[in-house]
């Protein structure tokens, strides 16, 4: 592991240069540039059909690019079949071989490399222990729960020591509690192994909480890439602002009216403060009087939708306890600091 670090600093684990993949008239991936660093937990986030899964399949070798170049640790891999790539995948449906026992599933990668029975059984046991499935070797995949299958799939992919691990919505089929548990475990595993994990998801919460960096996909392109805080705090487009969390998107004129530069801007609902009647505005903040259009209770916060006399509709998320006399149709006073507004590159 340690020997790799020097080279790892300069050579990305995965690099896309102008990669495109078309299916007939559909541009599934439409000119993607991308660098994933060694040891990085990288999330590809986007709605279905945005091209994130195709990108994953391009790295794995299940798809070949129609244009552009793909490198894995500096080596060009276009045209290389999946079995020649030091990259392994955890599939969305796990793709465990139904005719093999759990132990043989995990040992499959060793078997096709000609490793002897005793050695691969030993390694399979170790790999299963790593994902906390000790003693499950002789079970059939059909006898396992969803969470257990997920772990088997993980052990099976890791036993052949990939340089990059690809995960295609691996948590999508699990229930909420299990999902949160697996999130922590995956993150821990990735830290221990020091591997690059590339993780495809449509769940922004999952991407924000697990990834070192997030790439947001839309219509076959990456619209923004960066650390989770950056993507969340400074969305570059309306799409990102709305897909990653929720946001108020303001036009240049509306932003200017709130004391910010005249640029299309986003404003996160939790950045809007509620003021009690008669209180004076904090420094650097603009006070807005509005009429409440809708209120919804969401546990820790209350979401208030309100309209200013100028016709601007804002959504604010305020701590549930703070909201006193809030009724639909009633008045409300917001305070917005102008630096809470994040200028965007475009309003689209």
């Amino acid at each position, binding site marked *: 592991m340690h020997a790799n670090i020097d080279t790892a600093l300069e050579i990305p684990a995965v690099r896309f240069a102008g990669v495109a993949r078309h299916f007939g008239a559909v541009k599934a991936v439409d000119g993607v540039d991308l660098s994933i660093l060694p040891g990085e937990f990288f999330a590809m986030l986007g709605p279905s059909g945005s091209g994130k899964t195709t990108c994953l399949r391009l790295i794995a070798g299940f798809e070949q690019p129609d244009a552009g170049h793909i490198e894995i640790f500096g080596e060009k891999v276009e045209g290389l*079949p999946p*079995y020649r790539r030091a990259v392994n995948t955890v599939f969305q449906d796990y793709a465990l071989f139904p005719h093999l026992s759990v132990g043989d599933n995990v040992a499959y990668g*060793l078997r096709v*490399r*000609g490793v002897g029975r005793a050695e691969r059984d030993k*390694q399979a046991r170790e790999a299963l222990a790593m994902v906390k499935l000790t003693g499950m070797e002789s079970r059939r995949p059909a006898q396992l729960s969803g969470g257990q299958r997920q772990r088997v799939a993980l052990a099976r992919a890791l036993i052949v*020591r990939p340089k990059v691990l690809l995960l295609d919505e691996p948590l999508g089929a699990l229930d909420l509690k299990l999902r949160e548990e697996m999130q922590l475990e995956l993150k821990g595993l990735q830290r221990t192994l020091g591997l690059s994990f590339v993780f495809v998801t449509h769940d922004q919460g999952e991407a924000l909480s697990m990834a070192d960096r997030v790439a947001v996909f839309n219509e076959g392109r990456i619209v923004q890439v960066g650390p989770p805080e950056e993507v969340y705090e400074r969305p570059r487009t309306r799409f990102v602002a709305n897909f990653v969390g929720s946001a108020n998107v303001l036009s240049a004129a509306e932003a200017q009216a709130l004391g910010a530069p005249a640029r299309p801007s986003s404003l996160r609902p939790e950045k809007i403060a509620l003021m009690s009647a008669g209180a004076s505005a904090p420094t650097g903040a603009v006070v807005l009087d509005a009429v409440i259009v809708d209120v919804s209770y969401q546990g820790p916060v209350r979401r208030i939708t309100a309209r200013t006399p100028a016709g601007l509709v804002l959504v604010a998320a305020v701590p549930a306890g703070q909201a006193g006399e809030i009724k639909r149709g009633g008045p409300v006073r917001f305070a917005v600091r102008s630096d809470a507004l994040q200028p965007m590159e475009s309003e689209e």
Partner: protein
Amino acid sequence: MIPAILDTPAPHERTLRRLSDLLVRRHNLLVLILLVPPLLWLGMVYLGSLFVFLAQSIFSIDEFSGTIVREPTLATLAELFRPANFDILMRTVSIAAAVTVLCAIIGFPMAYYAARYAGPRAKAAFYLAVMMPLWSSYLVKIYGWKLLLAKEGAIGWIAGRLGLGPALEAWLALPLVGGPSLSVSYTGMVLVFTYLWLPFMILPMHAALERVPSSLIEAAGDLGASPGRTFRTIILPLALPGVVAGAIFTFSLTLGDYIVPQIIGTSALVLGQAVYTLQGTAGNIPLSAAFSLVPILVMALFLTLAKKMGAFDAL
């Protein structure tokens, strides 16, 4: 931590791996390689033979020498419409139609019961009970009916015991459908055909009925439709594609058969027998080929109609 492993394939695998690379990269090449042997077999052996045979329908036969005249003519095809030949066609199509209708009538209650009321175990038993006769020996099944239909056989005996002997006699005395005994009559022939092809009707009918959601039938009941009306307006139209799919089999199998008429039938020929005798003893291959075109054309027409009705989903 998992120890590293080395990817060192055995030397003899190297060429295979390279071939594998090619096939994975060029998926179309793989499909081509897979399809070429069966296509060659069926294309050359089967389609070739079929073409050689059917193409002779545009030749004719020299009436004196009995040799085939290899000049394109429509005369042979026109011969199909001569009264004697046209009778054969009409007779065969009528028999096929009667068989189809009988299969649908006998098969419907079975398919309907299995699709709507049977539990999973009963359903499996039903499936097996239909599959076994379907796959059991064709000749043996005909033989079984020969035993049953013979003058001294079981049906005659049972009819006698039940006092239905005179009724059976009266039926056999009828012009078209009768004959010296059941085993030498159209009634017998239609019965045997119905028996032979019944499973081919039940299975697609069952598949179509399985797809009628029971909520739909209940909804019709809730809306005040009587059971009879529900049956006519909901179940029957939805089962129809299955019946059409089954009819493809019953029709085509009856049209092409020459063994049942030979064993159970009367002296009046049906299409299959005509083809058989024309190519054999009569040595008139062109007319035999012309006759063979009829079931093919009828089926092509049938299939086109069926496709429009969506009958293929029930197969």
